[in-house]
């Protein structure tokens, strides 16, 4: 995914867990974060509010990318602070359209 986004001209950072994601976000100040929910250690539901706190008033789009596709999963993600809830499997072109649309807004 990172390779594709880089190829399409986006500046991308990746992190293997929630803690590393917070470290990367602190340095990189991303416009948009794509995060799995089932992460080792800190899960996506914990990561989202931590990222929000870190960003403060800065605009940042948070999207959960997960296989948890039930309505209650979506509600939980939105409650945690995600703006969007994308469900795997996700087609590459749909991801690029999504990122294109939100990159233009930030």
């Amino acid at each position, binding site marked *: 995914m990172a390779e594709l986004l880089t*190829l399409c001209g986006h500046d991308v950072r990746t992190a293997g867990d929630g803690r590393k994601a917070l470290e990367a976000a602190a340095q990189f100040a991303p416009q948009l974060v794509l995060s799995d929910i089932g992460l080792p250690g800190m899960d996506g539901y914990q990561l989202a509010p931590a990222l929000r706190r870190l960003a403060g008033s800065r605009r940042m789009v948070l999207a959960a990318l997960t296989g948890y596709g039930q309505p209650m999963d979506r509600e939980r993600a939105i409650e945690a602070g995600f703006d969007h809830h994308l469900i*795997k499997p996700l087609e590459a072109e749909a991801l690029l359209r999504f990122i294109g649309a939100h990159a233009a807004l930030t």
Partner: protein
Amino acid sequence: MSQTENSDPRDREIARLRAMLAHAEEVHELEKRQLARELHNDFGSSLTALSMRMAILARQPADTPPAADQWARANAILASLTQTARRVQGDLRPGTLDVMGLKLALEECLNDFGARNALDTSLTLPEQELALDEARAIALFRMFQEMLSNVQRHAQAGQVRATLAFEQDGQALSLLVADDGVGFDAAAHDLASSHGIRRLAERAAFLGGSLHFVSAPGRGASVRATMPLTPTQAISQPTTLNP
């Protein structure tokens, strides 16, 4: 005359069957959840990754070295997806059972289990042909899968030995799975609290058979299911329900 609850054998049998039905529903839900998890973990992630690879390929000249690398990665994901699909299909419905019969299905299942878990395995089968009806063959195969699943989850074994054999002058069939793993104190364990073991016991009981565990800490474990071969004997227990 007053009767205490469940003092009547018929009431006890009804209570037993109700508990069995409730457990079957619980197990059904667990299996569906497991399938959903598998679809999420393997299919969702792999299909997403594959879609990314194909999108990268579509943006690269076809004859460049990076494209060859992307094709190789895409193929590796596809191979892994195919393997997962086969495993899920096999769990839902063992195709080898229909095509090759119980003996070869057990053999393939054990070989696959040994390869996936890096275990030494051996299987002893009767030379005679098995004349089993479909329901009984499927039940035996499912019990075998459950026994192996227990080994995988709990035993930390290096070796698994399985035996399918005729007993009681050919009137019964027994299925044994024994491992050399950590074992457990069978007397101290509430075996009925384990879904896997309850499922095994219920399948065996439904076929008119029984289940027997032998284990001790540090000395491996073995589980043997024995069941009569004739359907009339197999359904003798449920018929006591008739009013």
